[in-house]
């Protein structure tokens, strides 16, 4: 089994509130899987169940193919950072990480400096955790998740609170860890664009339900721009387009709308072509899909029925 994380009909209820609906979800080895959902969608709740901080109401979790008591060993191969990381406020980064190094049985002390280097905190050795900014806390949380050299990282909104430069660094770091160290990564965010350049797979969650699960390739296809046309004669338009561009990709939609998925850079020529041939063009625009709205907005309507 190559699934690093696997859940079967996992649910979580808080009192009567079913926050996670039966969830069958897996993360395959080598993936960078992004879990995208608005605040309150249930991202952290799923992660907490994976880490053991919350007991699932029903369902099963397998980490590296292990479940129940056998999972203890598998958990040592995981690095979790869920919500805001917590450390001793009166300790420096080194003391805090030393505490966890002892706890996790990491043999080499120099690993502490390595992970601090990786997250860019190596030059903040004197500062106590209590004096850290949000972004620094987040970085130390990532350092902790790396401390025991895990094979799988689970990061809950790790980009929260970082400045633009920090976001770029973390993105670069995640890609590097994934490609060089072959670390599988599950990462959540409430903003798709934060992860669009990083992840290889995108899972959209809404009110505790997975509503879309797409590969990077499919996402890119969907997010590509298109030309949106409203014309009086769609048949004639199609004919003209096919004649002028052999490989044209278009869709005929109701209400005399045609969308064209390629040759977008030639929008001007296409427009002229139609007008020259007496097609009456009522609308002509180049549009980009807002995928967040597309995936998450879509279900809002469905959920409200």
């Amino acid at each position: 089994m190559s699934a690093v994380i696997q859940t079967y009909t996992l649910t979580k209820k808080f009192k009567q509130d079913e926050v996670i609906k039966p969830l069958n979800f897996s993360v395959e080895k080598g993936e960078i899987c992004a879990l995208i959902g608005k605040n309150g969608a249930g991202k952290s709740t799923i992660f907490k169940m994976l880490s053991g901080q919350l007991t699932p109401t029903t369902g099963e979790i397998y980490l590296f193919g292990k479940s129940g008591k056998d999972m203890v060993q598998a958990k040592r191969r995981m690095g979790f950072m869920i919500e805001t990381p917590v450390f001793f406020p009166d300790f420096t980064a080194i003391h805090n990480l030393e505490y966890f190094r002892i706890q996790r049985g990491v043999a080499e002390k120099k690993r502490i400096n390595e992970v601090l280097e990786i997250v860019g905190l190596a030059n903040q050795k004197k500062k106590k955790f209590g004096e850290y900014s949000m972004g620094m806390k987040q970085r130390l949380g990532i350092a902790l998740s790396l401390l025991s050299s895990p094979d799988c990282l689970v990061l809950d909104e790790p980009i929260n609170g970082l400045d633009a430069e920090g976001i770029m660094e973390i993105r670069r770091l995640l890609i590097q860890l994934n490609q060089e160290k072959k670390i599988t990564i599950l990462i959540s965010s409430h903003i798709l664009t934060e992860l669009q350049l990083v992840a290889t797979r995108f899972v959209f969650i809404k009110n505790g339900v997975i509503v879309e699960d797409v590969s990077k390739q499919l996402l890119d296809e969907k997010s590509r721009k298109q030309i949106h046309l409203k014309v009086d004669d769609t048949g004639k338009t199609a004919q003209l387009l096919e004649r002028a561009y052999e490989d044209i990709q278009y869709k005929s939609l109701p209400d005399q709308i045609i969308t064209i998925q390629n040759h977008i850079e030639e929008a001007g020529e296409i427009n002229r072509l139609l007008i020259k041939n007496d097609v009456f063009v009522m609308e002509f625009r180049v549009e980009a899909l807002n995928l967040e709205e597309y995936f998450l907005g879509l279900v809002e309507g469905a959920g409200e029925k």
Partner: protein
Amino acid sequence: MINYIKSENYRLLRKKSLYLTTAICFILITAAAFVLYYFNEVDAHFPYGTSSFFYSNVLGMGVLIIIISFVYNATLTGKDISLTKQAVSFGISQSSIFWSKLMLTLCYFMFVCIVGILLMIGLGEILFAKEPETTGNFLIASFNMVPIVLSGFILIHTLKMLKISDIYNIIIIVFIYIFSGDLLYFVFRQINGWNEFYLFAPSTQLNDNLMSFMNQSMQLDYRYWVTGIVISVIALFIGAATFTKQDIG
């Protein structure tokens, strides 16, 4: 679990409150001894310049000792409990966390108590006139207090691990170790067979222990252990069972 205990020990030894409390306790004990000694030297009729009076002060402060144990307990509980979410994520069980924190703080607390008793006996022997039975009686009285104080420590640990706020925690402790005897006396005094039940209340026992010491009628008493063990077992049973099942995210 060993690694977890080691890491908690690392944390504990870097807590200022631990050193501060210990220092303050030892300084107060020493200061009290010297104050009594001083008055005894300047005033020939000063009645309290004896080791038995010196010892009785500490025996009379059972509740204060339990409150001090609160500080030792808090070195690994209190706000630090929020770090356990990261320990749990790494596969450390909640029951390991519960027992490790308890055992570790309890060891340090008992160590400090033993040093405190030795310090008192040392001061008592050096500064005050020899009284043949006193030191032995003090050791017996201290031994009788052990189960009561430990039950207080364990109860505090459980309440702290279950995130009961400090105020309620202290109210519960004060109630059990100061007022429980009076309450049991009033509730059960009319009921045949139960009217001596209050003698098992920790507050009554702390008082009785002090009285026996002052009357020089000191002896070891199993009933202190009955009470101490009952309170401890109930606290541990509830604590370990509840904390282990508790969601901590």
